[in-house]
């Protein structure tokens, strides 16, 4: 069986930049976007376009996010 491929999306303005999601990703693709400040004044978490296809849809980032910022889907 091929490994899962996933896609994560962020509800950016809910993010509080707490960084919890950044340490639980097994493929280490979640990071804080320090160039961006959201409505609430935080640097939000993100996965860069280029990293996205490394995602294995494990859900860890979403599971640990206290603010329900992250949605995870499985691709193909």
């Amino acid at each position, binding site marked *: 069986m091929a490994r899962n491929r996933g896609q994560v999306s962020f509800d950016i303005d809910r993010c509080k*930049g*707490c*960084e*919890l999601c950044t340490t639980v990703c097994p493929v280490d693709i979640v990071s804080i976007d320090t160039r961006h400040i959201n409505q609430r004044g*935080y640097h939000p978490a993100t996965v860069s376009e280029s990293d996205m296809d490394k995602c294995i849809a494990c859900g860890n980032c979403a599971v*640990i996010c*206290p603010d329900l910022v992250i949605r995870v889907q499985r691709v193909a």
Partner: protein
Amino acid sequence: MPVVFERTRGLTEKEFHFCPGCTHGVIHRLVAEVLEEMNELGNTVGVAPVGCSVLSYQYFNCDMHEAAHGRAPAMATGIKRVLPDRMVFAYQGDGDLASIGTAEIIHAAGRGEKITVIFVNNAIYGMTGGQMAPTTLAGQRTTTSPLGRDPRQVGFPLRVSEMLATIDGAAFIERTSVHDPAHIRKTKKAIRNAFECQKANQGFSMVEILSTCPTNWGMSPLESLDWVKETMMPYYPLGNFRRPEAVTVSGASGGGHA
């Protein structure tokens, strides 16, 4: 595309007011997911405490009461006695449950009150600005133990689950933690089991969850997770302290939820 994880309908759209990285948010989500998965949202009445989760009534997508500080189990008792076939839960902090509300939690357990209590132990009074809780660890600095909790003066922290486990009416007691995804998933199972226990009328059920308070611990959210693991867990061992023979311990497998 199949959804691996998405926002539960068990929560309203309202954004949490919790500090960045505070695991109150995780725990709220887990409770909401379980109620949704059990299809009990329309059949549930929740009780919010006084504490950082005082505004829970805005977040849970079910009927809610806001209790007086420490009295959530008494309030939940009143509700459950009137509505014995509804799911009734109380969400409480450690100041709320283990300090001012000690009598109420012990007697709810003693009566075998068929309610579920979500007990968020973050070893501190979050809402009021970081005072010592009964669960504050020895040596831990808080605004009312500025030199660190001194057990010779104020005793050792209270292990609530162990204490309640001596009570016959307590059907389900488990301590879990939310410091990493694996433990979060285990916590969800425990919450599910607690509610199943209520549904089966088996008695009082409680899940004690080790949680963070980055703001008042004076740590970053990530440091806080480590502190839970390295400092809290050794004193507050995780595990099940009471479980009725019959309770369904099946995994709370997560339809659309990880």
